[in-house]
């Protein structure tokens, strides 16, 4: 059986809206509708979708804090909402915009409290802490109160906090939000190593396509509570027909650039926008253009996750 096994998983909320001075109308909102999801141990899965698509509702059901209204759900062999406390020992949760750490306490104290909460054996705790402190470069910060940490430092603290009890599954909700490029890169590298060395299963929700590109071989897209895509990222790009954009600044104004493998979408003075397939390399394109034109500057715009999903619809 899969580590995460959901079949026909649904969650409906009843919402009351004021329709008059005293009357309220009752509407049903299908936050998640008939979702099938099977994730094997050791997978790294990107779970994406626009705001309000049902991502966090799904995560809440997977962690057991929200009871599904219909469907079958097993995580690590148990029904999450019935075995929430015991399942909590086997999963880790990280929210980019929230912290599980104690504001007033030094990082070390938060970690020691978590050790007691999760009853991590002292040996295991010491080894884990030493390893994560080393990998996430937290050594100098252990005695700093959490309120004095920067966002990136706090995030590393939160990731460590979520892993001290050796969870089999780690749920990450927007883990790189607000981080600078270097911190993002380091975090991704850490998560990749975590998955490779410990076999931790990762389920990651994000708006940052580069998170997905760096980490996930498999992407699940959800919208309006329904799964609209499940497969490798390259396939998503192909189906969504998503493109990257090469922005070329020429020295002089010129007619639209004609080059193989790209189409010129827009010309504005000396600046031109060229679209090319998201899975193609920009290198030959750049070489071809610089060979023929006098180029002042170049930059590449990555496709937006929202655009990809939007195009997934218009294409289908």
């Amino acid at each position: 059986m899969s580590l995460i096994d959901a079949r026909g998983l649904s969650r409906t909320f009843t919402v009351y809206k004021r329709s008059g001075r005293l009357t309220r109308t009752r509407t049903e909102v299908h936050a998640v509708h008939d979702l099938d999801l099977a994730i094997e141990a050791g997978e790294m899965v990107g779970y994406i979708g626009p705001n309000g698509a049902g991502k966090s509702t799904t995560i809440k059901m997977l962690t057991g804090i929200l009871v599904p209204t219909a469907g079958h759900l097993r995580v690590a062999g148990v029904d999450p909402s019935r075995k929430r406390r015991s399942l909590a020992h086997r999963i880790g949760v990280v929210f980019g915009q929230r912290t599980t750490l104690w504001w007033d306490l030094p990082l070390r104290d938060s970690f020691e409290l978590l050790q007691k909460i999760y009853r991590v054996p002292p040996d295991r705790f010491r080894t884990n802490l030493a390893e994560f402190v080393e990998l996430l470069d937290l050594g100098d910060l252990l005695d700093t109160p959490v309120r004095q940490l920067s966002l990136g430092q706090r995030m590393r603290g939160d990731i460590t906090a979520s892993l001290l009890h050796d969870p089999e599954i780690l749920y990450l909700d927007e883990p790189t939000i607000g981080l600078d490029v270097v911190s993002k890169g380091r975090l991704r590298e850490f998560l990749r190593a975590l998955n490779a060395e410990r076999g931790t299963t990762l389920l990651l929700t994000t708006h940052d396509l580069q998170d997905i590109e760096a980490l996930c071989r498999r992407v699940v897209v959800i919208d309006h509570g329904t799964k609209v895509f499940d497969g490798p990222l390259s396939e998503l790009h192909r189906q969504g027909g998503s493109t990257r954009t090469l922005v070329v600044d020429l020295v002089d104004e010129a007619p639209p650039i004609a080059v193989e493998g790209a189409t010129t979408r827009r010309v504005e003075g000396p600046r031109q926008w060229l679209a090319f397939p998201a899975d193609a390399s920009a290198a030959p394109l750049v070489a071809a253009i610089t060979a023929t034109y006098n180029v002042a500057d170049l930059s590449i715009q990555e496709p937006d996750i929202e655009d990809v999903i939007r195009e997934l619809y218009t294409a289908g």
Partner: protein
Amino acid sequence: MTLLHVSIAGRAFRRYSTYTAATLAGIFTNCVFGVIICFVYTAVWDQRPHAGGYDVHDALTYAWLGQAMIMTVAVWGGGSPDDLAERIRSGDVALDFYRPVGILGWYVAADLGRALFHLLTRGIAPTIVGAILFDLRWPAGPLTWLAVAASIPLAVLVSFGLRFLVAMSGFWILDSQGTKVLAASAAVFFSGLTVPLVLFPGWLQNVAVVLPWATFLQVPADIWLGQRSGWEVLVGLALQVFWAVALLALCALVLRTAERKVVVQGG
């Protein structure tokens, strides 16, 4: 009570102990107010030597016990429920529901740790100063001391229950600051912090002495002063136990409702 809760309490104790300057300033403030209230009470009991069944020594002792209990039971609010209020405001509280440990027990432990620190510093220090400056009354014997020792943590639990409910109001009204101010005024008045409940007029006194706030100061003080003796001591402690249990049960109930709400509404 588990090892975890002991360590939570220990950490709360340590957290407050790091603010040495604030603690010393607080002790000084308590002493100043203790002296002021003693002057007022001296004037009152000069005119009415047995007002409320107290003599002037009882009244002066009551004034210092009041100063000792302000921070210990957190009459003005504060303590671990303030942490909860902050986590509700920021939304971090959603993560607390993911932990394999109860939230209420967690905060109770943290507040008991805090209360112990405040008792040992802002409770005991002003009492010693008061005893040097004025002729105070002391518990009559070991049994009375024991009853006082039982009464103080119970007072903390009752006050915790009220403060936790106030903090949880933030689940519904987003910011519990207003409720906190309102609750603090009620607590200062009905705890007898400024005017002992024994001086309240007839019907108001009858009501006030059975309200939860009466257990903050009036009950422990009356045990200390020997105003309650024999069975009356047990009745006083029973009132505290009743309010502690009732309020904590209500806290658990409200917390469960709040949890459902948080989980459903996102976070």
